[in-house]
């Protein structure tokens, strides 16, 4: 037995030495390759949303698998890593990407992991484009992080404004402790709602992986709010909704972009009716031709693969998929503009880039690296699907890093 183990050990060592030698030799082939890292969660609490975003990126890659640099055709290789919705895993996932010399990175769903990874991208001087991470901290103080969506201060005031329009005067906020997205957005909503003359009657927090919200919901029930604003993960949503209804809470439940996911409705069933969310994109919005083409093509892409369909929960087009697609296109455009595989050159190109054909609207970046976007879509759950309700534009509310 001892010998067996020793031999095993020796084999592993030999294997290891071979493995050390190998990474450099893979690219010996003739064709030129540029690597784009995909830094998304496909497991963990944000795995569902992360996968939808990943689908958008994969679809983009299917449409545009090559890019021309200096007159030469480069194959784009997607290097996908799973950050498991976990900041610790995120660090090692980023290490994996950087070790493979990616030129630019797309990701991630979930602001927390993006913030955690930002430092590493910044150090390695590799630009990253977040499709849907809305927390200001993601790009703040980081020259290499960009994003193609709007920010939480904006989203928070959109929802506050919407709540007021609906006649709410008392609101309760539920946020997830330690989740930058949830806590940030909740905070921005809270401020905007109070500035607008509303009253925050409860501000409750829960822990990651908590599945029993009855205690905090009981507290909320006692103060009788008109609306409950509960930005949180997809997995938390159905539990919150159902337990609230079970306790006899009838207030309107509202949340941010993460909740626009069919699985929430599937899991919460009839109790999800009336839930309102703000989001980046509406698949039935016919004003934008790019969006129309994208929706058609993407549905086809989804229907071609059984796994995609089940994980996406049908062939609805999630906003994060659209953003994932946009982020990919922006990355490709930036590579073209930079006319180089060098990551710093690509970053410089991103700073000045104006991408008109975005399916979520035209994309350009401000000095923080945030997309200049000023419109959000409000959707409501009706008859088991998300129905478009209205768009909200907050005039002149420049997305700025809060401090």
């Amino acid at each position: 037995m001892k010998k067996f183990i020793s031999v095993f050990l020796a084999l592993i060592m030999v294997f290891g030495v071979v493995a050390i030698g190998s990474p450099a030799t893979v690219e010996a082939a003739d064709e030129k390759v540029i690597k784009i890292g995909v830094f998304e969660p496909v497991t963990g609490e944000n795995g569902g949303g992360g996968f939808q975003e990943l689908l958008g990126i994969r679809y983009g890659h299917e449409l545009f698998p090559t890019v021309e640099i200096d007159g030469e055709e480069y194959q784009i290789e997607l290097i996908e890593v799973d950050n498991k919705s976990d900041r610790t895993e995120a660090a090692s996932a980023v290490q994996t990407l950087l070790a493979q010399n990616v030129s630019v990175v797309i990701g991630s769903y979930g602001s927390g992991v993006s913030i955690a990874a930002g430092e590493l991208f910044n150090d390695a001087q590799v630009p990253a484009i977040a499709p849907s991470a809305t927390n200001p901290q993601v790009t703040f103080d980081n020259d290499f992080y960009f994003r193609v969506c709007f920010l939480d201060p904006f989203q928070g005031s959109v929802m506050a404004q919407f709540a007021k329009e609906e006649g709410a005067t008392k609101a309760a906020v539920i946020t997830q402790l330690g989740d930058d997205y949830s806590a940030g957005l909740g905070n921005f909503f809270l401020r905007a709602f109070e500035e607008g003359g509303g009253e925050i009657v409860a501000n409750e927090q829960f822990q990651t992986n908590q599945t029993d919200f009855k205690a905090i919901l009981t507290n909320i029930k006692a103060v009788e709010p008109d609306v409950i604003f509960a930005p949180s993960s997809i997995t938390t949503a159905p539990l919150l909704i159902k337990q609230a209804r079970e306790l006899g809470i009838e207030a309107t439940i509202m949340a941010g972009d993460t909740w626009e996911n069919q699985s929430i409705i599937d899991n919460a069933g009839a109790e999800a009716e009336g839930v309102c969310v703000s989001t980046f994109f509406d698949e039935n919005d016919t004003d934008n031709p790019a969006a129309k083409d994208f929706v058609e093509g993407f549905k086809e892409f989804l229907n071609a693969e059984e796994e995609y369909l089940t994980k996406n929960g049908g062939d609805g087009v999630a906003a994060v998929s659209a953003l994932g697609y946009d982020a990919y296109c922006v990355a490709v455009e930036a590579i073209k503009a930079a006319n180089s595989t060098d990551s710093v050159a690509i970053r410089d190109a991103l700073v000045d880039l104006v991408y008109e054909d975005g399916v979520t609207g035209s994309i350009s970046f401000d000095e923080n690296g945030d997309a200049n976007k000023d419109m959000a879509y409000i959707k409501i759950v009706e008859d088991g699907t998300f129905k478009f309700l209205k768009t909200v534009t907050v005039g002149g509310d420049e997305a700025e890093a809060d401090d």
Partner: protein
Amino acid sequence: MTFTTFIQHCLTGISLGGAYALIAIGYTMVYGILLLINFAHADIFMMAGYFMIFAMSSLPWFISIPVVIIVTIALGLAVEGAAYRPLRMAPRMSIMISAIGMSYLLQNLAIYLFSALPRAYPTIEPLKQNFKIGEVSASLVTFLTPVLTIVLVVLLMQLIKRTKIGMAMRAVSRDYDTSKLMGIKINRVIRFTFIIGSALAAIGSILYFTDRMSVTPFSGLMPGLKCFVAAVLGGIGSIPGAVIGGFFIGISETFLIAFGYSTFSDAFTFLLLIVILVIRPTGLLGETITEKV
């Protein structure tokens, strides 16, 4: 806090405590006999959650429940046979590492088989009906859990008091070696303990997850540790003790969260453990044992 809110919190706490109590019994019985923290018990509980998801996808609930209980028992026995029986004579540390390893294995297996994404727990319609008593509103399962727990515990106590195998269990937990010399079939008693523990874990899992509606591979981890603490609190080896411990922890946890200290809800349990071990290592209902030199 109004009276209604208070009652509502109590209800939540008692219901949670009931589920904890059922799991804690599994710990306390195994520890009583094998002097082993069955770390894998928490994961058997978690696995029972997944079994229910699969059973309910094709079977009605009243068939699913017995099926899940049986499959869970099988899993419990498999764990015992694979991880504990071969190490009966091994040093304590090896057995403990084996228990931890088994827990680690079951978790990773669950991640592999069912992915780390949370799965929605099926709704057992009759259990989810909403009840309203005055301003207090909850689903049937919330009311049912503590009642069912008490009933099961009373039955279990009778079983241990009156049947031959129950007597054997008591004998083994009092003195392992002597019982062995007296001709008690130790392995049989241990198997029986695991059967009861796993069955209760399965029932606890149905009650717990019906109330919480989602299962992940890590769902068992924290409840498991808390239930072990409940068992220690009540006095390891003592079934009524485990029940008291379970209820105590369930209720205090709920109120901690209600008062806004959700960060400390887990930490509180462990603090309780350390305090108990220092002040009264035998727990509330346990007995003192002197070690021989």
